[in-house]
């Protein structure tokens, strides 16, 4: 190899090394930028969620001690019923087994706690799940939670619709004897919407991932009158 050729060869090697170095630095910096973009995006997501999620909430008077629902009756067993007022299977459950569960409460066999949760806001165009559950909170504050809940299920709108309007929610209340002024104001102001968020959050934390969910003494059972009644019997919940 001539001296001239060797010089050219050396220059080529150096050029390639410099090019590799530039490529390495370019990859490093674009990677740092990309990772930063992803991390910041995740942080923004959590920030948006935290801003939407109110940490304080108004608990309707008359709700259970931890504020996650309304109880009826008393007894050795505890039955937790989680329902969304837009959920068609919850209406089916109420139609088929609602009165049997109420009987367990009235006969002193169980304390039944109804938790109105909102997990189907995406299935109506007006967040009907949250609005209806908040209205049920208003009814509960005046001692008529269960009556109002049953009236809501009787007039359940279909999934994908706009649901019932606030005026209709108020009307259902006045039809069962709630006052237009106090109950109506409570519904239209959405006083207990933040409470519904709390009830829903606590249900999720308790492992509720769908509706209707029924628990007897903390254990999930099939949402049928037979299964609930069997689990409520002494020793029944161990099955």
């Amino acid at each position: 190899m001539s001296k001239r050729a060797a010089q050219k060869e050396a220059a080529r090697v150096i050029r390639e090394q410099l090019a590799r170095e530039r490529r390495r630095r370019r990859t490093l910096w674009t990677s740092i930028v990309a990772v930063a973009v992803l991390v910041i995006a995740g942080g923004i997501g959590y920030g948006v969620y935290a801003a939407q999620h109110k940490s304080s909430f108004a608990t309707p008077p008359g709700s259970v001690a931890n504020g996650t629902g309304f109880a009826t009756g008393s007894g050795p067993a505890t039955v937790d019923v989680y329902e969304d007022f837009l959920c068609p299977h919850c209406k089916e459950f109420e139609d088929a087994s609602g009165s049997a569960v109420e009987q367990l409460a009235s006969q002193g066999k169980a304390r039944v706690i109804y938790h109105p949760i909102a997990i189907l806001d995406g299935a109506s165009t007006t967040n009907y799940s949250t609005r209806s559950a908040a209205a049920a909170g208003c009814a509960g504050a005046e001692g008529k939670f269960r009556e109002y809940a049953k009236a809501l299920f009787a007039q359940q709108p279909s999934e994908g619709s706009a649901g019932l309007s606030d005026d209709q929610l108020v009307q259902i209340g006045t039809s069962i004897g709630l006052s237009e002024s106090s109950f109506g104001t409570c519904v239209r102001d959405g006083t207990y919407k933040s409470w519904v968020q709390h009830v829903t959050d606590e249900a999720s934390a308790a492992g509720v991932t769908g509706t209707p969910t029924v628990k007897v003494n903390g254990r999930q059972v099939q949402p049928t009158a037979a299964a609930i009644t069997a689990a409520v019997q002494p020793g029944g919940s161990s099955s």
Partner: protein
Amino acid sequence: MILDIRRLPVRRWPAVQPWLGTLVRLGLAAVWLTAGAAKAGDLAAAGRAVNAYQVMPYDVAKVVGAALPFVEIALGLLLVAGLATRLAGVVSAALLAVFVAGISSAWARGLSIDCGCFGGGGELAAGQSPSYGPEIARDLAFGALAAFLIAYPLTRLSVDRWLAASDAPAGPTPEEM
């Protein structure tokens, strides 16, 4: 007329590959943008969808559910721009692997949930049966797109390509080296 289909693609591959890469990149971007946008509207629901897999405490699921839609959107934007394409491909493949693992685990444990991949999620109503098989197949197909970008990250109409071009020396001046 006889068309030699075995030789044709091989000859054209160097010309076709960067443009095919652009299509793959934009396709995967569309997947992430759609998935992220579908979930970003209701972050609480996204958290519940994660919670339905029952693999982490709800407090953790809430954070994952809130962060994930925005990470997906950011990943989609990186792919649209073609910035750090190989890294975006690796992150895509990793996320999809986690999703496939989650769905498989839900399947194996006999859970009956909606994967929540494009919004929705949570336990299925009585009478509805899960579609874990198609959900996994879909994620694997998206994974194939990611794999293509890991293998061939330099695509047309990308920031990566533009950066590479503008970073190169102005001209062939070997004597200065």
